[in-house]
């Protein structure tokens, strides 16, 4: 690394301010003004659209295995999803996924 300390702090400050503004954007600026119905309808699906899409490439092509699909990780993801769908319980899903991952890593 060849950056000076002020440059590093400039990067940190820019990221801090920029990230806060992204998080604050709609929440801070729109506030209590009503969103149109179509907007609310779209935003209802933000979490279920973003979070699985965020992790899907890493599940199928993990960086840790140089992008090769890994049966242990696939099984752990399947176990998490199945337990979550069946029990509707987050903690049960985490336990199922972690157990599958640990078992697969140990015996695999």
């Amino acid at each position, binding site marked *: 690394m060849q950056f000076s300390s002020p440059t590093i702090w400039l990067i940190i400050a820019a990221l801090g301010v920029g990230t806060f503004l992204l998080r604050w*954007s709609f929440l801070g600026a729109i506030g209590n003004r009503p969103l149109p119905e179509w907007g609310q309808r779209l935003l209802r699906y933000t979490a279920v659209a*973003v979070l699985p899409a965020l992790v899907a490439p890493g599940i199928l092509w993990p960086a840790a295995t140089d992008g090769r699909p890994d049966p242990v990780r696939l099984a752990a993801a399947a176990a998490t999803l199945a337990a979550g769908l069946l029990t509707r319980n987050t903690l049960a899903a985490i336990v199922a996924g972690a157990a599958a991952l640990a078992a697969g890593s140990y015996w695999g």
Partner: protein
Amino acid sequence: MPSPAPSGSTAGTSAGLHVSTSRASAERPRQAFRRGMAQAVPFLLVMVPYGLLFGVVAQAAGLNLLQTIGFSVLVLAGASQFTAVELIAQNAPVLLIIASALAVNLRMAMYSASLVPYFGSARSWHRALVAYLLVDQSYALAIANAEAHPGLSVPQRLAHFLGAALVICPPWIIFTYVGATLGNIVPAHWPLDFVVPITFLSMIAPMLRTRAHVAAAVVGVVAALALAGLPNGSGLLIAAPLGMAAGAWVETRMIRRAIMGRG
């Protein structure tokens, strides 16, 4: 005050997501705060090892202790912090570092918009506080809480969010410090990369209640896989709106069918 909960009930202290709606609606803010804390505990599986790892990686990149902590306090966004430090270690141009790390955080603007219906009428400094503490995990818990208990008041939602954030965010900072000073104490052969997918899937699976939710998730995932080659995870910025549009479209169709009486 209506109090359907049996006295001495410790509702929601274990897995948390099974508190009945009527009981949750009768919660005092302090109880909602504690329920948020309890629900956030599993996410320590993510915050602790990744905080450690960030401390280690930032030291290896040549940052000093104060800069390392500064990253976790001021940015408070794991994936973008790793991106920035990786590019700092490679001596990338400053503007490229800032732009790449902010691109990783663009999804936060979508989170911000989707929380407007639940926190929009809170005071402006409360909304600013929610914004500062808005990470993937606190967002997922806030949405799960709002969907499971539609009758909650803004103070109840706020208390739940702050309880969850108190468990999720400070450990990120504390374990950044621990990693920066002690070095990596997580065994190298642990499949640490997979903690994030497991916790995210475990949050999302219980939310897949309707065909519209399933459609949003499936379209988002398929598009993200198809666009996985784009840099800095920017495929997500196309995949996520496609998934959201799919969910909204299926919901519209379901409503139309229900109105026409063909179920």
